[in-house]
């Protein structure tokens, strides 16, 4: 008997819900569970242990391939290097396409293989572009990143996994910042941070709106990118601007996390609080003692806020 079925029986027994309501809940939860049961790991005979062993073997194979390639790649011609990297990438793409996504384990394996293919594409095109733009490192990196972006977008559309979501966001960030570098290498470093921040926030919002599924990891990885972007912005003469951006971002993430009840966002926001509060306190007060005091005050405020929210929620439930 599943957990929800036990709860429904318990609630019906103590009179919290009627028989009709219990039947409705059973019908709803049953329809939610049905495809999951059909697709479950048990149904396909794939256990978590088997999957873990599979990944371990895969990691060892990748490590062996890395050592093997580090030995032979220096001896290969440029064509040979590109060919070898391209071949490995093709193997990852084909293997990912071959794996069925009828089970959660299959979907995870597919996402791992296709994530490897995104990295492989970047490496292949990077090697190829090195021969074409040998004096322009930014152009080489941009070619690699844009090609990775194309593969990341296609594989994500075919398998909307959390890992695919992360790879796509990384590729977008890489392509955008490198495009800025190629268009004008005199761009102030802080503005690369602003670009990363904007992409991160946009990704977070788009994930919330259902455009970049899965929503939960999308929002978390977007929020982390926004925090990293704000930190990069906070350099040189734009230090204060970046710190203000960081504080606003932290508040945005915490409010979103609280309203949507997303623990991942709350954790990202909490990390942002620690990172930015230290820097803001140092910027304003300029001493480590002040930083310690500021941290204590912020911690106290957070705890008081959490307790107040909890009491309010309890009150609402009692009403």
């Amino acid at each position, binding site marked *: 008997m599943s957990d929800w079925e036990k709860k429904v029986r318990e609630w019906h027994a103590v009179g919290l819900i009627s028989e009709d309501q219990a039947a409705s809940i059973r019908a709803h939860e049953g329809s939610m569970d049905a495809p999951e049961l059909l697709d479950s790991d048990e149904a396909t005979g794939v256990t978590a242990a088997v999957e873990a062993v599979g990944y371990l073997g895969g990691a060892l194979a990748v490590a062996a391939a890395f050592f093997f390639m580090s030995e032979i790649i220096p001896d290969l011609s440029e064509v040979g290097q590109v060919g070898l990297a391209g071949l490995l990438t093709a193997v990852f793409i084909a293997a990912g396409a071959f794996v069925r996504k009828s089970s959660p384990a299959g979907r995870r394996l597919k996402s791992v293989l296709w994530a490897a293919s995104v990295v492989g594409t970047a490496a292949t095109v990077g090697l190829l572009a090195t021969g074409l733009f040998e004096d322009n490192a930014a152009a080489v990196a941009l070619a690699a990143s844009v090609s990775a972006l194309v593969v990341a977008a296609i594989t994500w559309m075919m398998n909307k996994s959390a890992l695919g979501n992360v790879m796509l966001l990384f590729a977008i960030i890489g392509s955008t910042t490198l495009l800025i570098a190629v268009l004008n290498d*005199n761009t*102030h470093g*802080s*503005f690369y941070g602003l*670009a990363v921040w904007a992409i991160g926030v*946009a990704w977070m919002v788009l994930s919330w709106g*259902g455009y970049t599924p899965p929503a939960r990891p999308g929002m978390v990885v977007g929020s982390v990118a926004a925090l990293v972007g704000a930190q990069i912005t906070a350099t040189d003469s734009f230090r204060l601007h970046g710190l203000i951006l960081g504080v606003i971002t932290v508040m945005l993430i915490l409010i979103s996390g609280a309203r949507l009840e997303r623990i991942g966002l709350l954790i990202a926001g909490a990390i942002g609080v620690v990172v930015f509060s230290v820097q803001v306190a140092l910027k304003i007060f300029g001493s480590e003692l002040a930083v310690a005091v500021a941290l204590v005050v912020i911690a106290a405020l957070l705890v008081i806020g959490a307790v107040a929210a909890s009491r309010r929620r309890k009150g609402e439930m009692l009403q």
Partner: protein
Amino acid sequence: MTGANRSRTAALLAGGIVVVATAVIVIFGFVPTPKYPLLAEEPDPELSGMIAYAIPEDSDRDDEFESRCVYVIELPEGQTNEITCREQIGGMAWIDDGWLVVEDFGHVSEFEREFDDFDLTLIEPVEGGAFERVTYERDRSFLWSDHRQTRRDGSRVRVEDAGTTVVVVSPDGSTRDLFGSDEAPSNYRFNEAQWSPDGKYVLVVDTEGRIIVAAASGDPRPRVVAETGHEYGVTMAWYVPGNATYTVDREELNRG
């Protein structure tokens, strides 16, 4: 909020953020590199002597040793001549008789198969000029620009503000900004600065690889005497005939 409303709101928000960020980056993010006139455009007849500089050689050589080329700029015209390209040239200074002395760590130099780390190469500053080798085991700080950052009156020239300003520090400790750039890309800076032998000018090199000369008093009028194109690795030394400041005595070198 319904699903449709949420999607619409998310699209508008994300689009707005991207558009605003793009506008901010385009309008404020592109900071031009500071521009200075070429010496040929604004000549200064008071500039005299020769400025030698060494930069990594642009070549397709695929060996493990970096090759560097030595150039000499003749003042006041600013004409630049390549003198020699050698493997692993280190510090550089002028000898009092107008020759150059360089650290030459090349293990296979063109005229000596076996070269000791204690050896220095003396170069006649004309293209394909004569070479000599001396063994010198004492302090070699005279070969580096640090040695040329203090003027005879004790004033020091250096770069401050994360490398964006050239300043003169008087013996009493007071500091005077000579020239610099408030608005510059974050990766732009002056790599090093040194005095001219007569102490009337400072010589700096920036991350654009431009060798810039500026007057130490009055209007500094910074002007570009050479565009090396190398972000790092530019070493330089200034020689004025008859002025022994910052030069090394040839007899001293010969004594080893």
